[in-house]
Structure formats: C-alpha cells, structure tokens
C-alpha cells in the first residue's frame, strides 16, 4: 500500500518536472490573440464595425467585447476565418453595420475639389495627397476603399469607383463539375 503511494508520488513528481521543463523549453512565442485577429481583418480602417480602425476592433474581439460578424469589408469569408481562429460558430454578418460591397476606391473630381483638406484629415491611411487650397487626389494604390473621405467633403466631389476586373486581376474560376442533377 505504502509502496503504491510512493510510486504514485514519485511518478507525479517526475511527470510534473518533465511537463514543467517542456513548458519552458518548448514555449511558443505566439502572437497575442489580438494580433492574429488583426491579421485576418481587411485593414480598410473604415470603422463600420463601430471601432476606430481594425486594430481596436481586433482588440475588442480578443477581449470578448465585440462579436465577429461586424466587419462588412471582410465579408462572409473573413467572418468564417475569425470563427475558425476563435473556435466559435460562424454567424451571419450583422447588417446594421453595413453589407459587403464590391471592392471600390475613392475618386476625387478635381474640377469640383476646393482644396479644403477635410478628406485628407479623414483618410485613415494617408492615401490622399494635396494641401490647403490645392487640388487633392487619391493615391489609388494605397486607397482601401473605406469611404471615410466621402462624407466630410463639403462639395461632394468624392465618389467611390468599383474596381473592375481586368487582365492582371483576372482569376481562374472554380471548375464547374456537375455531378448532381439540377433540381
């Protein structure tokens, strides 16, 4: 009886030491959760989720304050990725925060622009160049299509132009192989 207890105690100590050692030895320096979430978010910085940018939203998700279905630019796919990362059930996008739209970028009508710099101040990624009383223009390659510049413009000279499919952007489609009968 005593021997059995001793065996169990010694076993517990040995296993404990091994576990403790491996916990230190094989410690995974993983990204904190918020960073992993941030990597999934589309970085449009549009604020449609109700947070001032993607990073704050990621932090809110990580701390459990926000749901995973508030990001329209990320769409269904982004939500699913978040669900997978967090091990929760996917849920439909919350439409009160907007619906997914085709990817667009902003365009400034330079004939109308008065150079007020309001849009420059609104742009979360500094993708508008220009100065006070100078014409402004969008740096197309940097624009995330967040639409934050549209509302502040006092003369409504900014419009969102959908990105059309062209050759460099064209993708091979998933092959259509019909096995089932068409219902």
């Amino acid at each position: 009886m005593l021997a059995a207890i001793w065996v169990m105690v010694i076993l517990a100590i040995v296993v404990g030491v091994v576990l403790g050692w491996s916990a230190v030895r094989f410690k995974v320096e993983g990204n904190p959760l918020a960073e992993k979430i941030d990597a999934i978010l589309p970085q449009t910085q549009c604020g449609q989720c109700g947070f001032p940018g993607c990073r704050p939203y990621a932090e809110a998700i990580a701390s459990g304050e926000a749901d995973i279905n508030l990001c329209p630019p990320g769409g269904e796919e982004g939500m699913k990725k978040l669900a997978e990362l967090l091990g929760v059930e996917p849920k439909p996008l919350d439409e009160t925060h907007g619906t997914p739209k085709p990817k667009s970028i902003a365009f400034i009508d330079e004939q109308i622009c008065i150079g007020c710099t309001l849009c420059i101040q609104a742009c979360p990624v500094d993708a508008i160049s220009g100065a006070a009383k100078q014409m402004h223009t969008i740096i197309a390659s940097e624009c995330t299509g967040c639409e934050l510049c549209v509302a502040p413009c006092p003369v409504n000279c900014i419009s969102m132009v959908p990105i059309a499919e062209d050759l460099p952007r064209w993708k091979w489609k998933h092959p259509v192989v019909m096995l089932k009968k068409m219902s």
Partner: protein
Amino acid sequence: MSRKLFKFKGGVHPPEHKAESNKRPIHTAPLPPKLVIPLRQHIGNPAKPVVEVGDHVLKGQLIGAADGYISTAVHASSSGTVTAIGPALVPHISGLPDDCITIEVDGRDEWIARTPLDYRAMEPANLRMRLRDMGIAGLGGAVFPSAVKLDPGAAHHCPTLIINGGECEPWITCDDLLMRTRADGILQGVAIMRHLLGSTEVLVGIEDNKPEAIAAMRVAAAKMDFPVEVIAVPAHYPGGGAKQMIEVLTGKQVPSGKLSTDIGIQVFNVGTAYALARAVHHGEPLISRLVTVTGHVLRPQNFEVLFGTPLHWLIALAGERGGTTGVLMGGPMMGLPMPNLDVPVVKATNCILVKSAELFPPLPKALPCIRCTRCADACPAELQPQELFRFAKSGDFGRAQEYHLFDCIECGCCSYVCPSHIPLVDYYRYAKSEIWAREKEKRASDLARDRHEFRLFRLEREKKEKAEKLAAKAQAKRAEMATEPAAEGAASDTDAKKALIAAALARAQAKKAEVAPKNTDNLSPDTQHEIEEIEARRAKIRELARQPLSEDKS
C-alpha cells in the same frame, strides 16, 4: 551521336497529328487591313506606348517601349497609321480587353532603317539591352524576355546551352517547319546565345518524330565553327518542356524552386534563336513568327504571320470549314480556347487549332475521383495530383502548396489519363490564381495597416509637437510678462488683438471692393491656348481615371 539519353518520369503519348500541317511549305500570310498589337505580349511589365494616335509608323518601328528589366518592347508589324491606343480584345481565355495599339496599314509595308549589330564587338549588357528593345522574347510558349535569360548572372557563364526543338504538343508543327527550312538562321542565333552565355556545350534536342528537321539541323550544325550536338530524343509528351528536355539530355533535374541556370543550363526554343539571328544580323525586331493553322480547316499549314493579324484572317487563309466548335491558341494539351476570332496573333501564338466535334468530341462528364493514381504515374513533375485535386477542390490552399502545387507545369497529362475525366488542371489553375490573389490582398492589407499605424503615430507626434510649441510660447510670454507691469500688459494684450482683427477685416473688405481682374481674364492668345490644352488634358485624365484601373501598382 551516341549520347546517353535519360528518361523523365511520367508523361503520355497522345496521338501526334503532325502530318496534317507539316506537308505544306510555309506561306507568308498577306497583310490584313488592321493590326492590333497588344502591349502585354510577354511575361513582366507591359510595354509603354511611345506613339500617339494619328502617328504614321513604319514596319519595325518601336511603338511600345520596354518598362523595366523584365519587359520587352513591341514594334509595328507593318507601316501605317496608329488609329487607337487603348483596351482591345486580346487572345486570353477570359475575353477581357487589354491595352493595345491599333494600326491601320497603308499596304506599302515600308521598313524602318535596319542596321545589323556587330554583336562580338558590343558590351554584353548593351547587346542585351538592344535585344530587349527589339522585342525578343521566348517563342516556345512562356514568352519570357530573352534578354533576361541571356544574362549569365553572377556565375559569368552558363556551361550548357540547350536549344529546344522538342515540340511535343500534338498538332503543332511550326518549330518543325522552322528547323527544316531555316536551320542556318537558327544556328546563327545559337552562336549569339553561346557568345552571351559563355557556353561550352551546345545541345539541340529534337523529338524523333521530326526526321527532316533533325537532318536539316545536323547539316547546318556541321557548318558552325563550334561543336553543336543535334540529338534525337524519343517523342514523349511533355518532352518539349524545358525541365523535361534538360533531364532527357543531361540526366540532371532542375532543383525544385530554382532555375536551370543554377545547375549551369539555359534552354531556348528554336524560334527564339531564329528571332535573335534576325535581330542581330538583319536589324529586324521581332514582328512576326511561324504559326501552325490546323485542325478543322481545308489546308492545314504553317504561316509566317505578322503580330497583330486577327485569327479569323488566318483561318480564312487556311480555308474555313463548316461545323467549327471552337478555336484554340496552342495545342490540345495546353492550348487555351479563344473567346473571339478578332483577337490578334501575338508572340506566344504557336498554333491556331480549329476544333470540330469530329476531331475533338465533347469531353465526357466527370465522375468522382477514385484515387487510382494514374495521374500520379503520368505526372512529369512527380506530384500527387489526386491529393492536389482534393485540396484545391476543398479550398485547402495551404495544404495544396505544401504538396508542391507550384511545381505543377500544367501540362495536362493528369487530366488526359484520368479515368474519371476530372478537369484536374483547371483545379490547379484555380488554386494557383486564388493563392496569388490572396497574397496580393494580404500585401495590400499589410500596407494599409502600416500606413494606418504610421498615421496614428504621426497624429500623436503632431499633437505632442503642438503641445510643446504652445508650452514654449506660454513660457516665453510668462517671461515677458514678468518684466512688464501686469495690469498694463493685460490691457494692451486685448487691445492689440482687437486692433489686429480690425486691420484684417479692413484689408479683406478692401480686397473685396477692389474688383480685381481674375488671372484668367486679359490673356494673350498663347496663354489662352495653353489653358485650353491643359483643360483638355485634365478632361482626358478624368476620363481615364473614371475607367477601371488597369493595373494595381501596389
């Protein structure tokens, strides 16, 4: 000639169908009324147009300049007038338009001044630059800028030069005919390649189903002042693939993810060698190539075709027949269906294959994969196509990459042997382009994140700087006030402010009252004209900007 040949794993033996088109001599296709020359005919950056609408151009004149290192120029294939620069239909499976230069030919076919190059006297870098500007790109199918491939890089020389006359795709015979009739030209091009690469060994691999071509090349090779070995290799699809040709001739495999130059081998298509000779010895930029027109036409044959010639023009020349079920650019194994017959012949066009229900019966319906691994046995890249298919189908692109999706050369052997008739290559293409798109998206979002973070940092910094400035100012004021009597200071402060505002108001009113002429009034006609031009340009830019973005510059 008793060189030991090696075998590559996998491969298939589809019916060759070469005899249809290799019996007739090469015909020069007559000039079409209009040439549409795409600016993106090669791998790398598209060429930049250097002519304007309305310009008259001569045959061989540069119309699109190379843009960057991996790029080549495009030239007018005949003399005429530029009538349009902008999106037009190109030979791409999507049917999407791309930037092209359209030339209305004048029928005179008038050349620009052509000056042969003394390539031995030229600095290699200069020579490569010239070749880039003469539009030389690989004519075997990939259309990679040849100037880049002719750079031996840090190794300074590439011991083995392989000239690929394999032409393993069924139906296609343009390289066959080229070797039969222009073997001397090809070898002149080989001499230039050898000079640039510093190669000591030159091997020409030709599949043994082209005895006439082998004989012609051997005769031409014997005339050269350096040893050239013309080797008949067994006809075995895809033996004309660069990696497969290397393995058959040398027994070496190009390491996965590396270039053939890493093992001291460079491979060029015979057509590229010929184009190189024309460019160097005759000063002719690349403006035409041999194109096989075969399949369901009356007279299957090879044509010498100017780039920009529409496909229907060639099909009409070969004799159109009823019952056509589609047109492919390339062969039946790797060719792409053309959405439209108005699209032009480009540098990559080696074959126009007209389909009929008889020659190409509709493919049977696909069944589920039964994991029979015939595809794995046939895969020359030694992949496991059945697993790649599973991952691609289920969208597990990460696993697909782990299983070496990007080593797939899309030769079509797996689909060819699949007893379930699954379009396997389609799945791989889909997975590859999906992965590329996601990487692009990822880069864009990373950039956006960086820029957003920098903005937050900048705002913070500005706030701090402002606060510091204010603090410094306040301190200065306090110091000032300490020297002056307090009460007086306060009074004078408010007074001064009031005075300042009043002065500013007065100035503003004065300005308003004064009906100053606008800077756009009272202009000289010259300036007026200039302004109009600027306005026009602006309108055009706006027009362009309204149109869909042509390329992501990120």
